[in-house]
């Protein structure tokens, strides 16, 4: 998969492999920095500038960089053309929780969507929780104290193919590529850790803010949603001075995400991430995005007993610097056309298979937004850790599925085992307080 590996590009790496779209040769980051000083005119014409506002204002290049202390304690917008939690800078902590819907009718499902909208709007913007008669259970778990501070919390709702079965009569409104996640050859999927009608991706600067949001939603929606599976992840501390501004490393010790498309580039996101008119998708799906989630165990004990040169050959990059093999710098772009036999970067290297840098592959890149996970040990006493892989794309078939298909049989498979996850569709954003998440879908049937 392009997937397990690729967290994001470092700020020092302007969009070298992205099609250049900026005026005047300035790199995107500087354009974004200049937003307040007249640079806004450029973005103003691009779709989704509302949702882009937060990352732009903080001057961060995109999803790949973990949000740092400078923008901690902020709010991410809830209302906008797109849902938050996709292209804004990825905070240090993220979890995904999949639910089975318990709604018994379409009006019941609408009620659920409205309820989720209300909760997410509150949780992401924060506020003080009402104290009630102590003879009743309190309204809030209280684990953040009396005032809920959002700390860049985003809660992103996506829908699984199973929601479009015969229960709610939504079959005709199903996004075209949405389906149950198929089993790839190296997968060992556990059905209880796969799929789900609804998935929430919850991200913030602290794990307790995420848990608070999860507890709130589980309590408020318990009659309508049953938890199916959950996975929590985290990233290296973005404020550690020794690694600040570096691409985050995965649990195999490799920089992960160097080649991620810069998510602050609204035009590029428009091309790669968001569903647009003309995508041959149901109308309500416009401004949504396909989401692939994969739970990938890494066999770290075995990996740590593997010679370094083999590790590097498997990835196609130098472990320390992150540079493509045969190159000097992390951000150097490997010239595969000049290396058709793979003498520098092997033909089976993860990096090369995931993104062969052909014109077509470049036009169907996915936006990766993964987290590392660690959760105890297995019965053999080996550490259970790996990657909570999450990616977004406008076309699931050409995006994740095509990339993972290219990766089938890669040498890395010996060290990883995907065991869960699913395909989902992140619904469009909520325009304002008079609207709710998934409204377009509900109205596509009732209209």
């Amino acid at each position, binding site marked *: 998969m392009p997937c397990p590996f690729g967290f994001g590009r470092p700020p020092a790496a302007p969009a070298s492999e992205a099609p250049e779209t900026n005026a005047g040769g300035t790199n995107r980051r500087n354009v974004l920095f200049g937003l307040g000083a007249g640079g806004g005119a450029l973005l103003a014409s691009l779709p989704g500038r509302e949702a882009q506002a937060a990352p732009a204002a903080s001057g961060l290049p995109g999803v790949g960089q973990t949000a740092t202390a400078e923008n901690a304690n902020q709010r991410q917008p809830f209302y906008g053309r797109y849902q938050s939690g996709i292209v804004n800078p990825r905070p240090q902590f993220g979890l995904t929780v999949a639910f*089975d819907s*318990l709604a018994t009718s379409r009006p019941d499902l609408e009620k659920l969507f409205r309820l989720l909208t209300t909760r997410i709007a509150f949780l992401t913007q924060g506020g003080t929780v009402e104290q009630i*008669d102590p003879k009743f259970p309190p309204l809030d778990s209280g684990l953040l104290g009396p005032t809920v501070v959002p700390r860049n919390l985003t809660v992103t709702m996506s829908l699984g193919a199973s929601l479009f079965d015969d229960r709610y009569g939504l079959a005709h409104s199903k996004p075209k590529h949405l389906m149950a996640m198929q089993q790839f050859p190296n997968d060992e999927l556990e059905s209880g850790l796969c799929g789900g009608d609804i998935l929430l991706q919850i991200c913030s600067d602290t794990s307790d803010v995420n848990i608070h949001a999860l507890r709130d939603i589980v309590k408020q929606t318990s*009659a309508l949603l049953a938890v199916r599976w959950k996975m929590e992840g985290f990233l290296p501390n973005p404020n550690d001075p020794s690694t600040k501004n570096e691409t985050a490393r995965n649990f195999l010790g490799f920089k992960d995400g160097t080649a991620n498309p810069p998510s602050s580039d609204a035009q590029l996101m428009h091309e790669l991430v968001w569903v647009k008119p003309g995508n041959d998708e149901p109308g309500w799906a416009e401004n949504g995005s396909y989401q692939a989630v994969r739970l990938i165990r890494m066999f770290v004990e075995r990996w740590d007993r593997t010679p370094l040169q083999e590790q590097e050959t498997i990835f196609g990059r130098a472990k320390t610097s992150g540079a493509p093999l045969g190159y000097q710098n992390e951000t150097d772009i490997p010239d595969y056309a000049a290396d058709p036999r793979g003498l520098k970067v092997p033909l089976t290297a993860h990096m090369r298979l995931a993104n062969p840098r052909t014109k077509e592959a470049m036009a169907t890149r996915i936006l990766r937004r993964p987290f590392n996970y660690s959760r105890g040990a297995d019965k053999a006493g080996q550490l259970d850790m790996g990657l909570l892989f999450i990616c977004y794309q406008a076309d699931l078939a050409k995006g994740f599925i095509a990339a993972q298909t290219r990766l089938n049989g890669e040498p890395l498979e010996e060290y990883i085992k995907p065991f869960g996850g699913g395909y989902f569709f992140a619904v469009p954003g909520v325009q304002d307080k008079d609207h709710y998440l998934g409204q377009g879908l509900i109205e596509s049937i009732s209209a």
Partner: protein
Amino acid sequence: MSFLPRPSLLAGAAFTFLTLGIHAAHADVPVTVTDKGCEPNTLTVPAGTTTFVIQNKSTRLLEWEILNGVMVVDERENIAPGFKQKLTTKLDPGTYAVTCGLIDNPKGKLIVSASAAASAPQKPSAVDLVGPVAEYKVYVMGEVDTLVAQTKVFAAAVKAGDLAKAKQLYAPTRVHYERIEPIAELFSDIDNNVDSRADDHQKKEQDPGFIGFHRIEYALFAQNTTKDMGPIADKLVADVTTLQTRLKTLAIPPGKMAGGAADLIEEVAATKSTGEEDRYSHTDLYDFQANVDGAMKIVELLRPLTLKAAPDLQAKIDGNFKTVDAILAKYKTADGGFETYDKVSDKDRLALKGPVNELAEDLSKLRGALGLN
């Protein structure tokens, strides 16, 4: 709060009397007591909270009581001659009597009229709870008596080596424990002996401390034998008999009764839906139904009070009980028992989750709605 056995039920009820909050927001109602009786002799007040100002113009120490039949609704004691005292109390519509000094003096009349305030949601008074709690005590005793009787029959079958009969009696016997679990669990020593799972013990099934219903279940259904189960069956009979004895003297606090409905449904939500409890016999639906029955009994007894205090809550609770009951009914067998849990379709397992979770949420508000601690 710990619940020590109390000598009488009423003692328990009187205890909670003091804990009910009363809020003053109304005009004072004066009443004077002379050596002859009350002036005025008839008082009329709107339902809700009233403050009476009692002036003792008699020559004796006065105790002023509001009576509903023979039951004291509220009282003010030790009003010295020449002194005034206040009594603030919450009254439901109806006609009450008040005492007026000497026992021979004619009793006064207190008419409490329905008011706008009274038709608003009303939390019950302690007196309102006496009836439901007493009826619940009767229910609990009935269940524990049946539990003891049937456990004896079950134990006899185990000891006689009658495997088929023992298997047949296992689930229907346990039902009587599961119905009153929140009360039975107040005695943790007995609960550990009677209802612990293998997982509660370090060596699981092989642990000598693993006794009770589930140890016998393991022998009957997983090992297909009654071998060595005699002493464990005897101990089970002894334990449920001890439970019966202890329950006789237990005054059930109203808060514990109301909270018990939530406890039973939490039990269902946390364990019954996974088939964890009766993992060898797969008779989980018996326990499931028993927990639901136990919760419904409590809700039923409190219904008149809940309807006054929180009618919407009552309606939601009723709706979800009905849904759960209807799904469970699909798995009833001709002999009045249930199919094994593995027969329950994934769809029905999921369909049970919503109403069970909502019941757990709603029942968690029952104590608050009734103003109970």
